[in-house]
């Protein structure tokens, strides 16, 4: 499976290119607007721009659906049988794990079902360098589950990704998930 860092690197490159282009374009426009010159803009150009916006708006989601593997997996997760299941409870700003360390073999699909007994929390896995692998919201009174395929060894910390009051900022369980060969 494509790693989240690869997807984020792609996003960084695409958005940076866009930002530089639009800033250069606006700079050019600001320079030209105070100069004498042609003022006519053909309606065809305008409609082409509208068409481009439609194509970009629709194609973004189609492209990500085809290239980001966890997107389709998330939508179909009810039909997918995981290799590992972990039931986690959150209560009074604390994660209660089924074991001290959640061990997953490389290549396995694991389902994390997180239940909140009181507030709205978040549930995310983070690498040692604090970058995020994935996250979801955890609402009380609802089933909050996420399916993820781990295709490389690693050690991850669990962290609440949603604000649950000032008591919640230390909701971190270091090195709680280990993916082994």
């Amino acid at each position, binding site marked *: 499976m494509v790693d989240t860092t690869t997807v984020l690197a792609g996003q960084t490159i695409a958005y940076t290119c866009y930002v530089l282009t639009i800033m250069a374009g*606006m700079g050019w426009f600001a320079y030209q607007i105070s100069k004498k010159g042609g003022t*006519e803009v053909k309606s065809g150009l*305008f409609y082409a*721009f509208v068409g481009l916006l439609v194509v970009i708006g*629709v194609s973004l989601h189609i492209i990500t659906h085809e290239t980001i593997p966890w997107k389709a997996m998330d939508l179909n997760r009810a039909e997918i049988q995981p290799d590992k299941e972990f039931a986690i409870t959150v209560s009074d700003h604390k994660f209660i794990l089924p074991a001290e360390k959640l061990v997953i073999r490389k290549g396995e699909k694991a389902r994390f079902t997180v239940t909140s007994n009181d507030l709205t929390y978040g549930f995310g896995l983070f690498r040692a360098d604090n970058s995020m692998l994935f996250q979801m919201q955890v609402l*009380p009174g609802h089933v*909050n589950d996420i399916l993820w395929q781990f295709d490389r060894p690693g050690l991850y910390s669990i962290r609440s*990704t949603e604000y649950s009051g000032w008591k919640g900022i230390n909701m971190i369980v270091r090195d709680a998930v280990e993916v082994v060969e």
Partner: protein
Amino acid sequence: MNLIQTLVNGEKGLFKPDTLTPMQKMTLRFVVVGLVYYLFAVIEGMLMRVYEVTPLPFVTQQQFFAILTAHPLVGIFGSTYSIVFGAFLFLVPFLMKKPLFSIKLGLWTFWLIAIGTFVFWFAGFVSHYSPLYTLYWPLPADFSQFSALGGAFFILGIALVMAGTLLWVINIFATITYTPAGWEKQPSGALIKSALGLTGLKNLLSKKKKEHLVSLPVAAIARGTVDTALNAVVLTFTGVLILIYMVAALLGIDLKHSAIDALLYKNWFWWGLDLIADGLVLIFVAGTWYLLATMITGKKLFMENIARAALFVEMVVSWTVWSHHLMSDQAQPGILKILSGEMVTAFELITQGLAFAITLITLWSARPLKMTNPLKFLLGGLLGFALAVPAGIMQADLGLNRILHNTQWVVGPHVHVAILVGLAMTLYSAIYLLLPVLTNGAQLYSQKLADFHFWAHLLGGIGMGAFMGMAGLHGMLRRTLYVNGEFNVYMILAALCGLLLLSAFLAFFINVVMTVGVKGVIGIFMPAKIKTQELTPAEK
């Protein structure tokens, strides 16, 4: 005039508050209070920027989150609502060439928003009530962390703002439809249909085209006002719900949190809250761009009918777009995530892109244009939304949301660039443009300060958003604290950009004070000496 004389009397003593009409005074009061609350929000923002680098000894963690709760609310309600409401109370009658329905109602709005904002800010400051603006259930009613009494005052402040907002909505629609004394009877039904876009919709389906009775900027204001009203209703209802829990707690009764379904509540609240972010802000901004472009160029708007249709689509989109805030909520139905979250949200790229293109082409049609303050700030505002809207579309994707939700990406390149660069620079453009009209010809104190204001604000806003975004892409969450300096490189750079934003505002503030003088600022808040319903004094 020396510096002290200018500070007291304003640039060349040109601003004379005694010559202002009641309408001008009311509008200027909204602007002054809006700018003061903007200063509040900038200082709060700067405190948090520094705190993200190193904890400040005089700010506790509870206080930090109270600031984080108040900061966006002061910015949106205290500052933006004040400036926008004041400007539109002036512009709707100005564009419709008729008096405002009620100045008294306008003044009620002014006081309710000014006092309401202070009440919720002060309640948060004293009690550290900090459920953040999202109020995810049952956090606002978690009295093991927050004071019920402090929370009750906080909600009271918000309620005052909402009451002022609803009075403003009445005033705007009444102004569009009413018949002033001595006037020929106005076609109120046809006016409201034209303002809301129903006439335009009928024209699309009928061969017999009807004339638009209201101008495009008024139509934009009316459509944004629909979202403002719906938002006020949702926030008021939610506030009452939370208040019930607070009052019960104060009376010693422990109401069960599970009586409210957290997901249903989140859907309801985000439906209403998003009417600001993805509704009235985008519609009001598009309308303001059109108005500014036509006023700056003196030309008709390019593709006006398309612009009207896009405003109507934007209003409908704003009612159906909320689910992009719940893409990481696994209990949210997948169909809502795809239709509302991804597809409808993508329409915002189209509607806002249309407004962007129409405004630029209208400006282009009048070249060569002098690079005035209103024009350059308008271009800055356009750039801000051109950067922020695609950033939002990216995070409203099911695949990307899984790794972007609640990171600094959301609040940096999307939220802060949209608000600080897109919205604020559009408002500055309007302020620079309307300043001579509202002050009967006061002259700006310093063009150098205005230039510094522009560049420092533009670079500070984009820079801060960019460095927050970089931190977000590396996993930094928003709404939390990193106490071991994990993201200090990005946070130091973001804080420096924040400092640039603060400097920009101080330059603008000094420029405005020196333009109208301290006597002038005081005079704005004194009762008007001219008794008239007219917007500006009659020509002698």
